[in-house]
């Protein structure tokens, strides 16, 4: 037997007699009846609104809950407003308590000030600009805090958390190797394939090798690695620190006289700074390998030929241009992730927002940094 089958729908029956109008309520006056209950509540008012004296008979009510009691009381209140005298009849003692607890009162919702849409739009726009500037200001402050705590740790090497750093390197660096290598093999292969197809029109398909070499070593290897790490490890750092903030673990550190930057953030950021160049190096090798395989397969360039062409196309500085960027990318990812994690408020929603913002900002900043480096290296002719 289901619960629904056991329910008796709420009903209102009107009976007029010489003694006046009697509304007999019956069935289950509970929230289970949903809108049925609301309709019957309204019907009490409709049936009795033109009378002077009404008796509401509750003897047939098989169940009553707060919602039912509230609707009966609301109807009584509405009828009283229309000068209808209402009396309740045959109220069981337990219903009487409930009706008393749920007596009608108007709940005034706290009024919210309303503004013009354009006004709100402009205000939001201004606010987001100010917020962005503040964020930048806070970011610079955070960087300063990080650097000063690094100097402090350098002066007191015993305070350095080596175990934590090694754990972070394993988490961020070692465990990212498979995915980083995989996507870079694929991207190297795709670049090679496109290079061969496009350059074939000019009969210059052997230039594919220098295309792959320079593009991968200078830009793609480090950029793809940074973006992957921003998504993979930056988000993890933000979520970790954010949930620690929500559970007051950060506050616990502070009151112990420990600095969260030294204990939590330094190992993570340093772990990133150490891991990212290594990952970028692996990414370079993987992409070159992918390029070589596709060149051999599609373009008929043998690995030996690929190697000698590559040797002519690139120099040590080509590789260095890429790899020098890696620690800076790591620093930006780590700091943004940590800062956003610590900015988490109490709710789960806020944590989600911070993680999203951390990843989006990191990727954006990684690309901006890459652009700045490109301008810089062009200027110094490296």
């Amino acid at each position, binding site marked *: 037997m*289901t*619960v*629904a089958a056991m329910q008796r729908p709420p009903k209102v029956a009107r009976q007029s007699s010489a003694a006046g109008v009697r509304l007999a309520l019956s069935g289950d006056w*509970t*929230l*289970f009846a*949903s*809108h049925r*209950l*609301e309709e019957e509540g309204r019907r009490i008012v409709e049936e009795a609104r033109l009378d002077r004296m009404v008796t509401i008979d509750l003897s047939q009510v098989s169940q009553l*809950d*707060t*919602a039912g009691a*509230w*609707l009966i009381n*609301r109807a009584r209140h509405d009828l009283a407003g229309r000068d209808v005298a209402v009396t309740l009849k045959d109220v069981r003692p*337990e219903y009487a*308590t*409930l009706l008393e*607890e*749920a007596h009608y009162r108007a*709940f*005034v*919702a*706290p009024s919210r000030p309303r503004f013009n849409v354009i006004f709100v739009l402009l205000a939001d726009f201004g606010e987001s600009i100010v917020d962005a500037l503040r964020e930048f200001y806070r970011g610079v402050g955070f960087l300063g805090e990080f650097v000063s705590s690094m100097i402090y740790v350098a002066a007191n090497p015993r305070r350095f958390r080596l175990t934590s750093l090694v754990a972070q390197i394993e988490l961020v660096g070692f465990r990212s190797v498979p995915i980083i290598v995989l996507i870079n093999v694929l991207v190297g292969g795709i670049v090679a394939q496109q290079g061969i197809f496009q350059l074939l029109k000019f009969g210059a398909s052997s230039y594919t090798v220098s295309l792959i070499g320079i593009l991968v070593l200078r830009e793609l290897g480090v950029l793809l690695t940074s973006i992957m790490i921003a998504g993979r490890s930056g988000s993890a750092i933000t979520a970790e620190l954010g949930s620690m903030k929500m559970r007051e673990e950060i506050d616990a550190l502070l009151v112990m006289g420990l600095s969260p930057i030294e204990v939590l953030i330094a190992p993570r950021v340093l772990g990133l700074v150490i891991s990212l160049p290594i990952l970028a190096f692996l990414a370079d090798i993987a992409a070159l390998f992918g390029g070589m395989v596709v060149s051999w397969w599609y373009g008929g360039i043998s690995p030996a030929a690929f190697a000698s062409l590559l040797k002519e196309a690139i120099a040590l500085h080509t590789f260095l241009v890429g790899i020098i960027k890696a620690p800076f990318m790591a620093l930006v990812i780590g700091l943004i992730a940590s800062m956003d994690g610590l900015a988490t*408020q*109490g*709710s*789960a*929603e*806020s944590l989600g927002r911070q993680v999203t913002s951390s990843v989006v900002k990191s990727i954006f900043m990684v690309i901006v940094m890459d652009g700045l480096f490109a301008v810089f290296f062009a200027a110094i002719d490296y």
Partner: protein
Amino acid sequence: MTSSLTHANDVARQRLNRDVIISVRDLVVGFGDKTIMKGLSLDVYRGEVLGFVGGSGQGKSVLTRAILGLVPTRGGAIRVFGQDRDALAPLERRALEQRWGVLFQNGALFSGLTVKQNIQMPMREMRDISQRLMDELAMLKLELVGLSPDAADKFPSELSGGMVKRAALARALALDPELVFLDEPTSGLDPISAAEFDALIGTLQQTLGLTVFMVTHDLDSLYSICDRVAALAEGRVIAAGPLETLLASDHPWLKAYFHGVRGGRLTAARVEQKDEQWKPAPTTP
């Protein structure tokens, strides 16, 4: 032990003359190679407030979670409202779940919703009623649990511990359940708020005709609002019955619990008060 337990249960059943709302028989629950419940049996009668006590880590919360279906069981039967939850079709199970309300230990309010939205959540999802009625009922529930109307639009992170418990109780009561589970409702509250909360549960229980299953460590709650108390130790219910029965028990754990340093002081105080013909009336907020 078992025969005296069944006897105590029979006495209580006759005394209350009410039907069984939760029946747990020979329940076995374990995690990994650790067995926590070793053939536990317990009855909860309609309309009573059952206090459930036990040492920390003995599995009080595990039993609650097993009854609620949050923890897989390894053996035994749990029947709530006379129905075996595992044997029900999904729709019937949902209907069953709407007949109980749960107050989790830390409130478990949805942090992304305001207090009012939290209370309206079950109504919105399970019932088809107008926004006006939902608003009115939410405010009514808020008032019932003793929260001021301006708490309605606050987020859980803006509330104090006591307010979180009250708001969570309001949410547990949103659909006017017949059965309410309270997991340590007074833990983390100051004695005044705890006494108010006890009184509140007592009042609500009488007004709404609730059955209350309350896991607690608060001896005051046991004294002031519980009709019956069940004690858990060694994976079994070692005693169940009116508080006086448990106080008179010879079981070493119960002796330590009620007549130890903290329990003893309170028990002595209560006995003294009873001698002076003082009735421990619940404090009204």
